[in-house]
C-alpha cells in the first residue's frame, strides 16, 4: 500500500482542474468531514507574478469570509508549499451555459438575482470580487450562487497586494468595469458592472464590449456605449434593458446603489423605474460618442470607498396598516422615513401593505362596491407616499397577500435584503390584546433593524 501524498495534514486526491494560475486537487482531512478542494499555485518556472500575489490575496481573504455564497475555508498553509483548503461545492459554474446563448429571459433574471444576493453578502463583508464572470460563479441545485476565486479581490481592511505590485489593471477583459480599467479597486459597483456584462451576454448572445486584448481596446468602454439589448433581442422586456444598461453605466454612482438594490429590481420587474434607457433601440450617435471620447471630464473617479460597505444605499421597508392608520400615524411614519432619508440619501423605500387573505374561504377579488381590493391598496399606498416626493427609482409599492401580517413582513424583509423596517405601533385596544402586536413580533424576529413609530 502506498501512502497518498499529504500537504498540511490534507490527504491529496485527484487533480480536478488545472488553470493558468493555480491547480485544484481533491483532498480529505480527518478533522473536516465532506469533500475538500486544495488550491495550489503554479510555481513552475516563468510564472506570472500576478499568480503568486493573487494567491496571497486569496490566502488572506478567503479565511475571513463567511456565509452560503462562498466556499468555507478549512485552512491555509505554506509548508512545504502554499495551499488553500476549502469546501468543495457541489455545483457547476455558469461556463457551460455559454455554449447555448442567448438564454431564456426568465433564466437570465433568476441567475442575475442569485448573483446579486451573493454579491450583497460579499460586499457586506467589505470585499469587492473584481472578477465576476461565468467561470467564477457556481450554481447549486436550488439556484443559490457561490462565488469563487478571490485572487483579484479587494478587502476594505486588508493590504491590497495587487494594487501595490502592479500598475496595469488585472481582470477579465469582457467584464471589467471602466473604473477598474483606470486602476480603481475597491468600488463594489465594479461587480455590478460585471454582472451587467454577464446579463447582457446571456440575453443577447453578444458581449457588450467584445473581448479586447489591449489596454486601448479596454478603455473604449469609457465612451463607447453598447447596442441596446432590445435591438438584438426583441423580446427583452424594457425593464430588463433598463436594469442591464444601468449596470453598464460608466460612472459607478449611476449604477444601482447596491447589489441588494439590483437584486430588488430583478425580483420586482413591475416596480423598476423606467428611464429613456428602457426604450432605446440604437446606440448614441457617433458625434455623442466622440464627444465623450475626447472629454476629459468623462472619466470615472473614485468618489466612493468600500470602507463602509454599502451603508449609504440601504433598502428601507415601511409597513402601512391602511385599515387602522390615522392621519397622525400616517404623517408620523412619513416623518420617520424623511429622517432616515436625510442621513442616507442613497436609500430606497419600499412601501408595504399586507392584504389579509383567509385560509378557508377564497377571497373575492373585488369588494362589495366592485373595487379591485389589491389595486385599491396600491393606490392608497401611493397616496401615502406622494408627500415624500421621491423619484420612481427610489420608491416602490407592494401589496403582500398573506394570512398573517408579521410573517409576511418578515418574509419580505429576508427575501429582499431589507436593511431597516419602519412600522407603526398598533393603538391600544382589543385587537392588540387579542391578536398580539405585529410590531413586537416583527421587532423580535426581523433580520434587520426595526423602528416602531408611535404617535405622541
Amino acid at each position: 500500500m502506498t501512502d497518498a501524498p499529504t500537504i498540511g495534514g490534507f490527504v491529496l486526491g485527484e487533480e480536478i482542474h488545472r488553470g493558468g494560475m493555480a491547480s485544484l486537487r481533491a483532498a480529505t482531512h480527518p478533522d473536516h468531514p465532506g469533500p475538500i478542494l486544495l488550491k495550489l499555485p503554479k510555481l513552475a518556472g516563468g510564472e506570472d507574478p500576478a499568480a503568486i500575489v493573487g494567491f496571497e490575496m486569496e490566502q488572506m481573504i478567503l479565511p475571513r469570509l463567511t456565509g452560503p455564497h462562498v466556499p468555507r475555508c478549512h485552512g491555509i498553509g505554506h509548508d512545504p508549499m502554499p495551499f488553500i483548503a476549502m469546501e468543495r461545492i457541489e455545483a457547476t459554474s455558469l461556463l457551460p451555459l455559454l455554449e447555448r446563448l442567448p438564454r431564456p429571459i426568465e433564466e437570465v433574471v433568476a441567475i442575475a438575482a442569485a448573483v446579486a444576493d451573493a454579491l450583497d453578502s460579499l460586499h457586506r463583508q467589505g470585499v469587492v470580487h473584481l472578477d465576476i464572470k461565468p467561470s467564477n460563479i457556481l450554481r447549486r441545485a436550488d439556484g443559490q450562487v457561490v462565488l469563487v476565486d478571490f485572487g483579484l479581490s479587494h478587502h476594505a481592511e486588508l493590504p491590497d497586494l495587487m494594487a501595490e505590485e502592479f500598475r496595469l489593471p488585472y481582470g477579465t477583459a469582457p467584464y471589467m468595469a471602466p473604473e477598474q480599467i483606470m486602476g480603481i479597486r475597491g468600488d463594489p459597483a465594479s461587480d455590478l458592472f460585471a454582472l451587467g456584462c454577464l446579463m447582457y451576454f446571456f440575453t443577447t448572445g453578444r458581449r457588450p464590449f467584445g473581448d479586447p486584448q489591449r489596454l486601448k481596446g479596454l478603455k473604449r468602454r469609457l465612451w463607447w456605449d453598447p447596442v441596446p439589448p432590445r435591438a438584438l433581442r426583441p423580446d427583452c422586456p424594457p425593464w430588463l434593458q433598463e436594469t442591464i444598461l444601468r449596470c453598464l453605466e460608466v460612472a459607478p454612482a449611476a449604477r444601482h446603489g447596491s447589489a441588494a438594490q439590483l437584486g430588488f429590481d430583478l425580483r420586482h420587474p413591475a416596480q423598476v423605474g423606467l428611464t429613456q434607457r428602457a426604450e432605446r433601440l440604437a446606440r448614441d450617435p457617433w458625434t455623442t460618442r466622440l464627444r465623450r471620447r475626447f472629454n476629459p471630464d468623462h472619466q470615472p473617479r473614485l468618489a466612493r470607498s468600500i470602507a463602509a460597505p454599502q451603508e449609504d444605499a440601504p433598502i428601507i421597508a415601511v409597513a402601512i396598516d391602511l385599515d387602522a392608520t390615522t392621519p397622525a400615524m400616517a404623517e408620523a411614519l412619513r416623518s420617520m422615513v424623511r429622517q432616515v432619508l436625510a442621513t442616507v440619501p442613497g436609500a430606497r423605500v419600499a412601501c408595504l401593505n399586507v392584504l389579509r387573505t383567509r385560509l378557508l374561504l377564497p377571497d373575492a377579488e373585488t369588494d362589495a362596491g366592485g373595487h379591485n381590493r389589491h389595486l385599491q391598496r396600491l393606490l392608497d399606498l401611493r397616496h401615502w407616499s406622494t408627500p415624500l416626493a421621491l423619484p420612481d427609482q427610489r420608491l416602490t409599492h407592494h401589496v403582500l397577500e398573506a394570512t398573517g401580517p408579521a410573517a409576511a413582513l418578515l418574509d419580505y424583509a429576508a427575501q429582499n435584503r431589507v436593511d431597516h423596517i419602519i412600522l407603526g405601533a398598533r393603538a391600544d385596544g382589543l385587537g392588540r390584546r387579542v391578536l398580539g402586536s405585529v410590531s413586537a413580533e416583527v421587532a423580535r424576529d426581523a433580520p434587520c433593524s426595526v423602528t416602531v413609530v408611535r404617535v405622541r
Partner: protein
Amino acid sequence: MRIALLADIHANLEALDACLAHAAAQRVERLVFLGDLVGYGADPVAVLDRIRPLLDAGALALRGNHDEAALFGPTGFSTDAATAARWTAAQLDAPARALLEALPLTINEDDRLYTHADASNPADFRYVTDERSARRSLGGTAARLTFCGHTHDPMLFGLGAADRLALHRPPADVPMPLLPSRRWLAVIGAVGQPRDGNPAACYGLLDTTAATCAWMRLPYDIAKAAAKIRAAGLPPRLADRLFEGL
C-alpha cells in the same frame, strides 16, 4: 501563541493597566515591552513596579531612548521631552534604575525581532516612518518579522517576493494577516502617548499560530493620567496631547 506587544508606555499607568487587563482577557501567553517604559508621563516608578513581576514571570522588555535618557541624561530631545527626562531621572529609585539598566536593545525570538526603533542600528534610535526607513530597518535583520515602536504611529510594512515594499495603515482591532510568504515590519502604536490622532491606548496582539497581528485600541482614564502630569509640574502640553492623541 498569543503575544501582547506594548510599546511606548511612557510612564502612563492608566493606559498600561487598560492594555494589560485587555491582553489578559485575550489569553495572552507572553508580554513584550518594546521600550520607552518611562518619560513624558507622571508614573515612572509605578509603571516599573507593575512591569517588574511580569519580567520575573517571563515577559520580555527592551530599552528605548527615553529609558536611556532617564539613566544617562537627554541628548537631542525637545524641550518638553528633556524636561520630562530630567524629572523622571529624579524620581527613579535604585531598583528602578537597575531594571532600566538591565534592558537590552533588541531580542530575537523564533522568526521575530523585537526592537524599539530602526533595526539596522538599534542604538541610534532612528524612526521608521516611510518606505525608505522601513527598507533600511528590514535590511538590518534576517528576521522575517520585525516589531518596533518609537514613532507612536501604527504602520505595517510588507516586503513581497518582487522586492516591492508597501505601507499599510492597519485599522483598529482587525487582525492583519502576516503572510509567511512575505517579510513584515510592524510599527506598534503607543500605549501611553498615541500620536496618530486617536487618543485610545494602542498595543499589538500577535497570534503566531494564525499569523496575524492586530493593533488593539482601548479607552482609558485619560483625565486621570493628565491630571497627574499637571500635578507633577511637568509641561502642561504633555497632559493636553493625551486628549488629542497628537
